């Protein structure tokens, strides 16, 4: 699987941050949901217009045509403006339109990207737009290119709670400061990062793979430094990795 494409931006301060880009499939699904929403809104409006029919059938039909048109063109514009880049479909799929340079989305950009659907939806089922998404670097359809917008995956990440996860636990590995020092010395940042990730996300993993993952990690770290067997007695792989992470990310010389 190819890694998800990202939009990487550099601030004038030299700080680099990036957004994961939404793929064509999630965008297509969002579009389908939006179509369904428009269709049901229309069905409801038709009921309302039905009342107008008693006054004048001609007016009712005319109003119906105009409402359909306004809804079709205005739906995306209105929602993306009110919800800062999201329609109902995009919200369900957790994706959002943002400015291509990470700035605020302007009304002009929203209108333009929605007007260009006329070309992106050609010849049918958004074939042109889909193709453009597949080949452009930032997964942009023509509307996005013209308006300089991108669609990102937007989950609001929770405040990290690692501190709570590691605190107030007795760490038996600390009894051997020289082995701890060796562990720090021999572990690469990538290995440390992987172990940290595993600890932070441990509750998101199903029990069986979770067991397997921590067994793997434990075996890996045991090849680096061998702690005496009595330390490892009664210590699960997960507890072992938790202790390892605490040692790796702690200041050297800070007592347990």
């Amino acid at each position, binding site marked *: 699987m190819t890694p998800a494409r990202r939009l990487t931006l550099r601030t004038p301060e030299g700080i680099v941050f990036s957004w994961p880009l939404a793929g064509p499939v999630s965008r297509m699904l969002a579009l389908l949901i939006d179509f369904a929403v428009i269709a049901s809104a229309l069905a409801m409006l038709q009921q309302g217009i039905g009342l107008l029919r008693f006054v004048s*059938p001609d007016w009712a*039909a005319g109003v119906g045509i105009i409402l359909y048109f306004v809804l079709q063109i205005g739906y995306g514009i209105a929602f993306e403006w009110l919800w800062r880049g999201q329609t109902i479909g995009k919200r369900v799929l957790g994706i959002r339109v943002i400015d291509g340079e990470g700035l605020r989305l302007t009304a002009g950009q929203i209108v333009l990207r929605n007007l260009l659907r006329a070309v992106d939806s050609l010849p049918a089922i958004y074939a042109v737009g889909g193709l453009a998404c597949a080949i452009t670097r930032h997964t942009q359809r023509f509307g996005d290119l013209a308006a300089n917008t991108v669609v990102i995956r937007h989950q609001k990440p929770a405040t990290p709670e690692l501190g709570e996860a590691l605190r107030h636990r007795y760490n038996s590995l600390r009894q051997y400061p020289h082995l701890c020092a060796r562990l720090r010395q021999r572990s690469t940042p990538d290995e440390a990062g992987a172990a940290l990730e595993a600890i932070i996300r441990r509750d998101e993993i199903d029990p069986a793979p979770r067991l397997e993952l921590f067994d793997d990690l434990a075996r890996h770290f045991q090849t680096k430094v061998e702690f005496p067997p009595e330390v490892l007695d009664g210590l699960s792989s997960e507890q072992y990795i938790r202790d390892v992470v605490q040692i790796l*990310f702690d200041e050297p010389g800070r007592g347990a």
Partner: protein
Amino acid sequence: MIIDVERFFTQNRPQWQQLEKLLDRLEAGDRLPYDEARRLHYLYERTSADLARLSTFAAESEAGAYLGALVGRAYAEIYETRRRKARFRPVHWFFRDFPRTFRRHLAAFGLAVALSVGGSAFGAFAVAIDADAKHVLMPFPGLEGNPGDRVRKEEAGPNPSLAGHRSTFSAELMTHNIRVSFFTLALGITWGVGSVLMLFYNGVILGAVAFDYVRAGYSTFLLGWLLPHGVIEIPAILVAGQASFVLAGALLGRGDRRPRRDRLRAATPSVVTLAGGAAVMLVWAGIVESFVSQYHQPVLPYGIKIAFGLVEVALLVTFLAFSGRRGEST
């Protein structure tokens, strides 16, 4: 290792959460007082520094994603320099922004006019030299017939199939024409190639129809038929073409050394304003076409219809040339 993650988190989390709260308020449309704006900037810089520190030891940690998202949101609020309109004022927009934008991009409008005129000449010429051309060029069967038959039919009285359906017809015309104009605009993304073809083809049809009726001696009928709505509808499509050329111009960027993204960013407000203006014009044209253009002599004398069309032209030209002149920078 470089930093103590536990202490790093516990020490900095309050600042991150404070920044998050400020951003929530800003994104909800709040304005920040001076002190808080300064605080926002301070927190942004601090969080950026935290992100930089964190990214030195873990490539893609969850905390990195959190800080990255936070910095991204703050960046959008702090570095946005485009003026944000307090409120959209439709009347102000239509009577000031639209004609000003139109005048600013007059060359693009000229190109659209030239293409349509060229297309019309080609259409007229094609029908003149080749009787068969009519069947190929006309998009609707209603236009293929003999002009004389059509005129007699129209003059026999208002189209009975339209009786009681004028609003529907008007709505259909409006939405169809606006769709066409938006499509013309969108074709600008083909570096203008699509828009050139579209405008030229529109011209061809117009030229062919006009020549067909003029040759058959029905010039007055034609003027009475087309002028009331055509003098607004055709310029509206040309304005859409103008918008598409502004877009194409930004894409091509001839004589402009800015990067493409910046050119497009600068052109976006003009393109959108012209599209909106064209849509408003087409609403008017749709009403006129359904409620005025379809009535012919003897119900509505041609003189009145033509005069109505000429008054519209005069108003349109005055509007586009002079509306919003006061205070306009040249």
